[in-house]
């Protein structure tokens, strides 16, 4: 058996079908998109080779750069929030609720299964204003305050978007980190307790270092998911007011599919890919060394 799996030809034959599908579905489209970023036009008008013009345009395009900031800002804020709250929930499951955490875990995880567009519509109805006041503004009115049209301002829209994303995905990170915490040997925790480490000291000196690998994985998952946010911001306020909350994905979609500029759209897609890569490397490189140490 070892001789069979040690044979290069066998490995190649066994890998070939999967590798072919992977190349067909992943590598070729990505390479195709990369190639398109050097062209201008669309399938109907035809394509014209313009070299690096799309990249130059991207660097001088204020709308594109604004979208980069929206994507990065949203990703950083949401990642910090959802990993922090997810971790706190995981600690709650393990150290407070213990075996009785199943119901809470399910309840907090439940929004994760809802379609993001439905979640966005739900939040829109919660903060509605005008003829149909939503419960949030009803509550504000009940305390004597004036109704707030959250979606009329950039800060309001981003606040709602962050809260909405947290509500729907925090449970996923809580479960992910919960499984990481379960892997920490009970004896280690008990020994630390016997040595006098309790509460924040136990978490800071024992739990966090031991759950660091899963914590870093969560950060990378979260950054990559939030950098590519699209449907929730589209459904919430269509990237508005104006284009102040339009992430890079939405700008790419509009450029490629609404304005039929496939070449420039591909350039934006490439920028997004590089952004994801940079963020992943920034988090992964130092952390991988630390974990190995």
């Amino acid at each position, binding site marked *: 058996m070892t001789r069979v799996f040690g044979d290069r030809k066998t490995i190649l034959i066994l890998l070939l079908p999967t590798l072919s599908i992977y190349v067909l579905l992943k590598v070729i489209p990505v390479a195709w998109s990369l190639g398109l970023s050097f062209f201008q036009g669309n399938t109907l008008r035809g394509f014209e080779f313009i070299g690096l013009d799309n990249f130059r345009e991207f660097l001088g395009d204020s709308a594109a750069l604004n979208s980069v900031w929206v994507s990065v800002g949203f990703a950083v804020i949401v990642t910090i929030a959802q990993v922090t709250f997810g971790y706190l929930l995981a600690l709650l499951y393990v150290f407070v609720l213990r075996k009785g955490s199943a119901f809470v875990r399910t309840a907090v995880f439940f929004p994760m299964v809802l379609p993001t567009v439905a979640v966005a519509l739900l939040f829109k109805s919660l903060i509605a*204003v005008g*003829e149909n006041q939503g419960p949030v503004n009803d509550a504000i009115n009940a305390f004597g305050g004036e109704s707030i049209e959250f979606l009329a301002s950039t800060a309001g829209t981003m606040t709602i978007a962050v809260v909405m994303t947290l509500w729907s995905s925090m449970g996923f990170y809580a479960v992910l980190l919960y499984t990481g915490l379960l892997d920490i040997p009970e004896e280690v925790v008990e020994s630390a307790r016997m040595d006098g480490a309790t509460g924040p000291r136990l978490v800071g000196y024992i739990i966090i270092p031991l759950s660091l690998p899963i914590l870093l994985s969560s950060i990378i998952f979260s950054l990559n998911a939030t950098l590519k946010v699209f449907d929730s911001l589209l459904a919430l306020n269509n990237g508005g007011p104006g284009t102040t909350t339009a992430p890079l994905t939405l700008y790419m979609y509009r450029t490629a599919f*609404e304005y039929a500029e496939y070449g420039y759209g591909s350039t934006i897609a490439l920028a997004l890919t590089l952004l994801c890569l940079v963020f992943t490397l920034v988090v992964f490189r130092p952390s991988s060394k630390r974990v190995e140490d």
Partner: protein
Amino acid sequence: MNIRHRRRTVVAASALLATSLTLAACSGGGDEDTDSGSDSDSGSSIGTDPDSFEVMTANENPTLREQLDALAANQCSAENDALPLEHRTIAQADTVQQITLLASQGALPSHFIAGTDQVRPDGDLGGGGLVLDYEEAFTESGAWENVLPAAASTIESVYGQMVSMPYQYNLEGFWYNKEILAELGLEEPQSYDELVDAADAAAEAGYIPIAQAGADGWPMTRLMGLYIFRNVGPDAMAQVRDGEASLTDPEYVAGAQALQDLALSGALGEGFISRTGDQATAALLSGQALMKYDGTWLLSAVNDPERNEVGEENIGFMPFPDVSGGAGSADQYPANAGAAMAINPETYGPLTADWFACIAENYGQQALSDAGVLSGFAVNGDVGDIPAATADIQERMSTIDETVLWFEALLDSESNSLASTNVSLLTNGDMSAEEYMTQLQESIDSNR
């Protein structure tokens, strides 16, 4: 180790570059294909009939499908027997993407919805001869006499050629509640200042003065655009298109300022930025709002007793009023003919031509009698009793000498989108009138 590593990097980089260049070359090949395709289409040649009369409409427009079905079952049954009608639908927001894809595959249906920019003479479809300029073909078949001259003029103005069937012919103006206006002791506003005064009075009385759907964007830019048309004159946006004027000129900025002032004064009511079109219509037809600027497509709702709680007799229609000292006039109604519905020249064979001739002859009467929809086709035959509001609009249509387009009509698609998206920033005061117009003008200039 280092040498091997470096060699591996060079090989990988070379492979990537080669793949990119190969794919790029393939993409470049598409250019040649498209060019040759364009050359082979004269744009007015008669094509070959397909197996069916395939019509692609927007999901959001069931009325058109229903009326075509009705024609297929009645007046156009012979044409339907020869070439059966088949429907295909797409989301209106996906139109440009889907049509671009279908056209590049040579798979356009016989009759299809298209983007405004696409069908213009310099557009992807119009420039490539992929849409039929049907005036000559319809004249030959005798169908042209059923296209109303006003509708033809509007289509020509918007698209630059006769490439859209006028299933709709709409005027725009303010729909208002006659009872509330009388309660406030006011007459129909004849000037913009009177309109603002009426809005103030309505707000004081607890009504929504002008129920606009801010969430949709365009209902807001309509107000700004009409102020500009009344102020500068009916060719205001044509001047911008032709580079003779700029949106940053004071008289254009005044339009954006007027909209901002109107919004910040509370004339559009609480929560107007997130208000949807349906909510705005409901506010007018339930007696909560004094006015709503909208098109005559609202007639179907006004004429529907289930939706119109205040009664059809209490809803009036008036044009956007004069702006004092302006070069435009309230007689110049904005007009449009709905989303572009183009004809594929490649499938415009004799049987397809019969279908279009039958539609042109019968659609006007069918849509008016069945759905109360006013179209750009002649009404041939009896339509029974017409509701008063519909009759009023018909009367206005017959007396109009000059129409204007809407603010974004002549803009490229990117600037069009920017105008709608940025208008919420303008109306909530986050963007000044000058900033709004400067950004828009920059977008127009960069897309010339």
